[in-house]
């Protein structure tokens, strides 16, 4: 067999192989485009419909925006039908107060707790970490009844406190930060700081926190999203509050309550609640996806 013919046989096989891969890649590409459309279409229709009047929406489906944007906005902010249940300014404000305070508490105290467990040796160290791991899975739905009745006894229902203070104890975040410290916080640093005369709390604030920035950034984003989107706890604790104390998701919930729905305005309200978080996501998506991937490698 000559060298040439061998080359041509292998060459043909190779061509065939790359061709197959190419075809497969294109088919998969098409499938991903379809999935992308499925992911984005509801959001797109939402944005389009927020610019259309209720009559237009009921009369037909369209992918082209109409000119009713400001009209819908005006109805949402001034109509008596929505005034008692939806007020986006209050919604943003209340959600922001609860979310920002809860996020700061979660991140700071989780870092503090994981630092305490990581750096110091004490008798209850192992057992306290085991407790944290064990309670990681208990969902709020299980403790809800006891929590609500306890808060009613303390007369704290209808206030924001029960939504903010519990954020101090976030077992899953402690678990994540402990794993992060294990891999990238050498204990020699603490000893060096002691020799330089730094106090224990000072070492944590001035040295540990800056070193944990990557973990803190990721966990802040997740804590923020989780609190911002939370419907269950606020809806449970804020039993009977006026519109001025409702969070955004609670306002969304009240949109479904009426039988006669002005769809243009409903779409407008949903769009106003969804757009800020999508915009934030566009900028932070790299962080977020890296964070999710980290959470997955737990084995």
């Amino acid at each position, binding site marked *: 067999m000559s060298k040439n013919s061998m080359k041509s046989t292998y060459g043909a096989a190779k061509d065939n192989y790359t061709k197959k*891969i*190419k075809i497969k*890649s294109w088919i*998969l590409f098409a499938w*991903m485009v379809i*999935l*992308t459309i499925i*992911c984005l279409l509801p*959001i797109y229709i939402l944005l389009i419909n927020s610019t259309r009047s209720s009559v237009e*929406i009921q009369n037909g489906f369209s992918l082209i925006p109409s000119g009713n944007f400001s009209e819908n906005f005006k109805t949402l902010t001034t109509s008596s039908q929505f005034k008692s249940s939806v007020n986006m300014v209050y919604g943003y404000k209340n959600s922001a107060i609860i979310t920002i305070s809860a996020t700061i508490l979660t991140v700071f105290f989780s870092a503090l707790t994981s630092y*305490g*467990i990581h750096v*110091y*040796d*004490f008798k209850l160290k192992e057992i*306290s970490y085991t407790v944290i791991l064990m*309670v990681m*899975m*208990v*969902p*709020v*739905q*299980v*403790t*809800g*009844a*006891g929590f609500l009745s*306890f808060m009613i006894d303390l007369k704290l229902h209808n206030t924001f406190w029960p939504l903010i*203070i*519990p954020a101090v*104890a976030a*077992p899953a975040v*402690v678990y994540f930060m402990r794993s992060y410290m294990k891999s990238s916080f050498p204990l020699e640093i603490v000893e060096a700081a002691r*020799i330089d005369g730094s106090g*224990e709390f000072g070492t944590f604030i001035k040295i540990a926190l800056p070193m944990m920035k990557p973990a803190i950034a990721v966990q802040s984003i997740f804590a923020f999203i989780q609190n911002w*989107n939370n*419907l269950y706890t606020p*809806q449970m604790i804020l039993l009977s509050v006026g519109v001025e104390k409702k969070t955004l*998701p*609670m306002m*969304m*919930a009240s949109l*479904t309550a009426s*039988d006669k729905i002005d*769809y243009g305005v*409903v*779409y407008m309200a*949903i769009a106003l609640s*969804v757009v800020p978080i*999508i915009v934030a*996501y566009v900028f932070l*998506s790299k962080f*977020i*996806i890296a964070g999710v*991937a*980290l959470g*997955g*490698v*737990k*084995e």
Partner: protein
Amino acid sequence: MAATGAQRRIKSISYAKYGYIFILPFFIVYFVFQLWPLINTFVLSFHGNGNPSEKNTTSNEVLVGFDNYSTLLSGGEARNLRMQHEEFVSSFKNTIILWIGNFVPQIILSLSLAAWFTDARLKIMGKGFFKVVMYMPNIITAASVSVLFMSLCSDKGAVNQVLGAIGVGPIDFLKGTVASRGTVMFIQTWLWFGNTMIMLMSGIMGISPSLFEAAEIDGATSTQAFWKITIPLLSPIMVYTLVTSMIGGLQMFDIPYLYHTGTEINKDIQTVAVYIFQRYKNKNGAQFGYAGAASVILFIVTLALGSITFFLNRDKDEIAKKKQRKKLQKDAKARSKQFGGLSI
């Protein structure tokens, strides 16, 4: 040698108390806001429902033993007890149906996508973009998503308009049993498949690439590599995904709670979490007894599922080391016995 002096002094100080101080806030808040409520839930589940207007119910203060549990699990003579039982059982059934209906398509979709995205041989354009888009539904407020789909799927909503254009009669996506459940399953899958996909991808990327290379050299196709390498090595993460998804499924709340018009919740998609929540906001005052009992049942199920993940999550090296240490100690003891209890 001042430094060594300082070092020695520092070594001799016990820092244990700082450990306690640092973890104290966590545990105080945990005990007050999570552990006590959990205990309180158990306490409430053995008390009445604080609802004097209804027959067969007693005040919040009165101990009723296991009455709430027997009502929920087996009903009773009175009509209202039977209804309570039926509502609870159907909500449990709905939870399972909705969970299976969203997990199966979700895992198929996520796993296939994860395998394709990590396959080095395939050249798919814009992988990064697709990942970002597919994860996006997961960060959008679930309450808004639910109301959005409620609007899209209403009688004259966008979905029925499109279906009408191709000649399929209007489908009642909001009230029809199959249609409403199907829609909730779709929404849940839509929300979560991106998240599962990224978790599985990071799992696949943790598998040593040399295995895939060796398989390729041996002439294995992508499909063979997927079934013979990816799936077996991915199984710990798959089990983890399965269990966390089960626990998450038991908590399914936002979508079923909001996917309806008017004030009445659609009974076909009422989940356990929704059932418990409705006890707090009952017309005649909160029914903490039933809510507590249902929560405890939910807790036991979650605990059973959670302990599975806990054992899967244990640090395997640590356990092996512990075993070895024990064995060494045992050997040492045995040896010291040989020498008449003298330790050498």
